């Protein structure tokens, strides 16, 4: 069995669940949800088993599908986040169904599977056509997911905004792909890299195409100045979908960015100087425009949205640091590392939000007041999550930031570095504002909040992962480094 079969099977499972729900309307959502979760878990196990089996790939897929360690890493990443999102959906279901038209959640369990298979496919893409098709598979499914809580005006607004801006960015991306094809005569990343190294390639044409592609992808990963949709969409979308957008969609965007930039910035590329400068400027803008407005947010969900923008900025800055001579990790590896640390802390944050919501609380910072009194366990886990998002030493978030900062300093990109430091300082302010609210004691309600044992366990595992990665990141680095070596060897 090849990895491609797993991806196709996952999409198939999504379709089957959709049909089952349509023809057997009385099926319980628990069954649906658990089936989807079981399917994802099985896919993950199978992925681990067959990960080195490249030979069995169907021959018609060979030119489109690659299986380096980066691809494998992102495939696993997609499965893990999908699993967590499905579980979170199940946990938030009683609350979410109040806002759906028929009081059901069917597509909420099948669409994530399709998104997941799209993300897995994207991780293996070798050319821009595959990228585009996979990206659309993901984005179109997200259009539905974002607007899923149809009875909530905010969710509808989010859905419309995401649809319009998403469609626009898709258009820009396609346009860019066309220009690149015009300039280089090929769609495959290898071919593009080769063509760009040829001095005869028309530089303005290639540059225009590459810039359009980066802008189109910038929309997907929420890079400034294409980040305007993020706060509204994140706020309006159902919390599990927000978590999925913030982690899954972002990771998918970054794997494509990594591949595209490997081609655009390949040795001898005629456009590498400009693209690098473009990345530094966009990255610096993104960290600042994410972090500074976050300081003034009163809603934690919007705050997390802005923080997600600023994290995209750090990732872009990491991508700008090519050929980090003194690191084992390439810039793509650093991005993968950062995303791996970003997953547990962001999911944990949204998990907390979802659990508060399920308890009838709002999403404002003032709703967090006194959380430590009402449920000390949840408060502690949220503290770990926010501390890590802020980049406190001994948490996973710090190691990721440290890599980015050291990379920038090693290259002497002082301007970008100072923007990143300012953003990190602002980050400390707004995350700790929330933490402080949780531990405030005077004038707060003291009725206990109840959360299920399963939630507690998942949150606990995520918190422990954050702390372990914070003090012992070596295994993760090893996974990614071996991948780099394998990719080079090929």
């Amino acid at each position, binding site marked *: 069995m090849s990895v491609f079969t797993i991806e196709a099977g996952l999409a198939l499972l999504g379709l089957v669940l959709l049909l089952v729900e349509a023809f057997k309307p009385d099926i319980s959502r628990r069954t649906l949800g658990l089936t989807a979760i079981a399917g994802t878990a099985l896919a993950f196990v199978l992925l681990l088993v067959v990960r080195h089996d490249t030979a069995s790939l169907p021959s018609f897929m060979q030119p489109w599908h690659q299986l380096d360690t980066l691809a494998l890493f992102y495939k696993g990443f997609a499965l893990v986040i999908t699993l967590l999102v499905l579980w979170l959906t199940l946990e938030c279901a009683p609350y979410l169904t109040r806002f759906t038209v028929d009081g059901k959640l069917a597509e909420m369990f099948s669409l994530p599977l399709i998104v997941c298979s799209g993300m897995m496919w994207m991780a293996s893409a070798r050319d821009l056509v595959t990228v585009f098709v996979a990206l659309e598979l993901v984005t179109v499914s997200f259009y539905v997911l974002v607007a899923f809580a149809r009875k909530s005006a905010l969710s509808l607004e989010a859905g419309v905004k995401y649809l319009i801006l998403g469609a626009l960015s898709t258009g820009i991306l396609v346009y860019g792909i066309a220009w690149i094809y015009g300039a280089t005569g090929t769609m495959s990343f290898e071919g593009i890299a080769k063509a760009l190294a040829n001095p005869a390639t028309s530089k303005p044409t290639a540059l225009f195409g590459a810039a359009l592609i980066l802008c189109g992808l910038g929309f997907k990963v929420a890079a400034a100045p294409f980040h305007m949709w993020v706060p509204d969409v994140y706020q309006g979308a159902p919390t599990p979908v927000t978590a999925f957008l913030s982690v899954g969609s972002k990771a998918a965007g970054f794997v494509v960015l990594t591949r595209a930039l490997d081609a655009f910035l390949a040795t001898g590329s005629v456009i590498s100087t400009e693209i690098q400068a473009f990345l530094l400027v966009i990255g610096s803008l993104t960290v600042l425009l994410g972090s500074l407005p976050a300081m003034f947010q009163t809603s934690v969900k919007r705050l997390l949205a802005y923080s997600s923008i600023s994290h995209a900025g750090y990732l872009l800055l990491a991508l700008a640091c090519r050929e980090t*001579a*003194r*690191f*084992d*990790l390439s810039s793509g590896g650093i991005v993968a590392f950062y995303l791996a640390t970003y997953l547990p802390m962001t999911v944990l944050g949204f998990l907390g939000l979802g659990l508060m919501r399920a308890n009838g609380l709002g999403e404002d910072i003032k709703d967090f007041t006194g959380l430590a009194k009402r449920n*000390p366990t949840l408060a*502690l886990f949220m503290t770990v999550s926010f*501390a890590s998002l802020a980049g*406190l*030493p*001994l948490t996973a978030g*710090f*190691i990721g930031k*440290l890599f980015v*900062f*050291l990379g920038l*300093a*090693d290259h002497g990109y002082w301007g970008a570095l100072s923007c990143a*430091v300012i953003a*990190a*300082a602002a980050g*400390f*302010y707004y995350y*700790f504002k929330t*933490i*402080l609210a949780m*531990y*405030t*004691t*005077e004038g707060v309600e003291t009725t206990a909040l109840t959360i299920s044992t399963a939630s507690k366990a998942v949150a606990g595992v995520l918190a422990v992962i954050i702390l372990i990665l914070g*003090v*012992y*990141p*070596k295994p993760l*680095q*090893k996974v990614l480094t071996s991948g780099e070596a394998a990719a080079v060897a090929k």
Partner: protein
Amino acid sequence: MSVLEIIIALPLLAALAVWLGAPARAASLGATFVNLALVLYATVQYAGKPAGLAFTNARVVLDNPAISFAVGADGVSLILALLTSLVMLAAVWQIEDRPNIFYISSLLIGGGAMGAFLTTDVFFIYAFHELALIPTFLMIALHGRADPAVRKAVAWKATIYLGAGSLVLLAGLAWVVLEFSGGSKLTFDLEALRNQAQLTPLPVAKQAQIFFVLLLGFGTLVSLFPFHSWAAPAYATAPTPVAMLHSGVLKKFGLYGLIRIALPLLPQGAQVEWVQNALLLMLLGNILVMGLVTIHANRLDDTLANSSVMHMGYIFLGLAAGTEIALKGAVLLMFAHGVSIALLFGLCGRMRNQLGTLEYNKLGGLASHAPAFTVLFAFGAFASIGLPGLANFAGEVMIFAGSFTEFKAGELSNLHWTVILALWGVVMSAVYMLRAYRNIFHGSASTGLFMIDPAFSQRLPFILLAATLLITGCCPWLLLNLMKSAL
């Protein structure tokens, strides 16, 4: 497994246990007791060993950049570990009728400080200090002794100053790592960085620049003038155990960092004229300006908080001079000041609990009903002034003597002038401390307020600290011999 790892882990594990529901007081006291015993054991062991790092052990957590959880101790770090365990024990001991979070935060601050003093990897040195800062802020904001709005403002001010200081420090440390890693691989290992620094010293001008960045970063954490204004309100507002631990122990981290990282890696940095002059001016600000501010304080907590900022000036003087005697004096004074200020803040907290006020014009004559308390306070106050026989005196004398060297008649260097001016700080200390002592314990109170001695078990933590002051004051060689050639 090194004994130092146990020493670092024990308070943190105890904090976790208390959070999980273990009996707070028993667990905290037990852990801090065992910790003190372990530190004493390590100290005694180290006394018989050759100079250099001992009890080393490293666990690699990242290959490149090379980061490892490496522990190791020399005389300086052991002295500070001893200070930490003493103050942590006293701070935990004196807690009465408080929520568990008081125990947890004390253990976290103490454990974090322990980690910062006993690890030899720049990454973990920095990380442990940050770990200790977080509970400090939270405790000031949540359980400080003022209106919620006021204490939140105080906590934010401290957070912003210390956060900014930490970022500057991080920049300086990253610079150090990038400059001294050498070769093809970045390393955070202090020993490796030191070896590289000895192998290929940087140009003096560059050393001065890096040293200055580190000085600003570490200095802000130690309330070096003019980055000191967070400290006094924070200490005056902080809950008692937090004030004891932060002013007594955690603040010493900045000085320790300068001695541990900045001076060995950048040996000429501190002696470059512009850096030296800037440092001398700043430390004179600590001693003279803060001395005058302290004299005008009219509440005991203000006096103590400001005096603690002021005394940092002497230690910086020792670092600025950089002679062996001055540096050893600085380390001794760090220890002595930590013990004495923790003693004073602890007693001050008790007074506030019993009397509800600390204003001098409302207090008086407390000695008549609380003789034991008065004697204990006298130990702290006189040590703080620098009375011979108590620990601070030994440190201050060594600093002054070590700084006033190479004297030629008629030619006074800036350093000499600074020493001459700094000596007046001792006079100021005497003025404000003796006045505070007289106002509170002698005469009679216009308000009729009085207090009684604490129960014997509650005197013990303070007796422990007072005894430490006396022993170190009479036998400073106990600590000085530990330092061997560490400096």
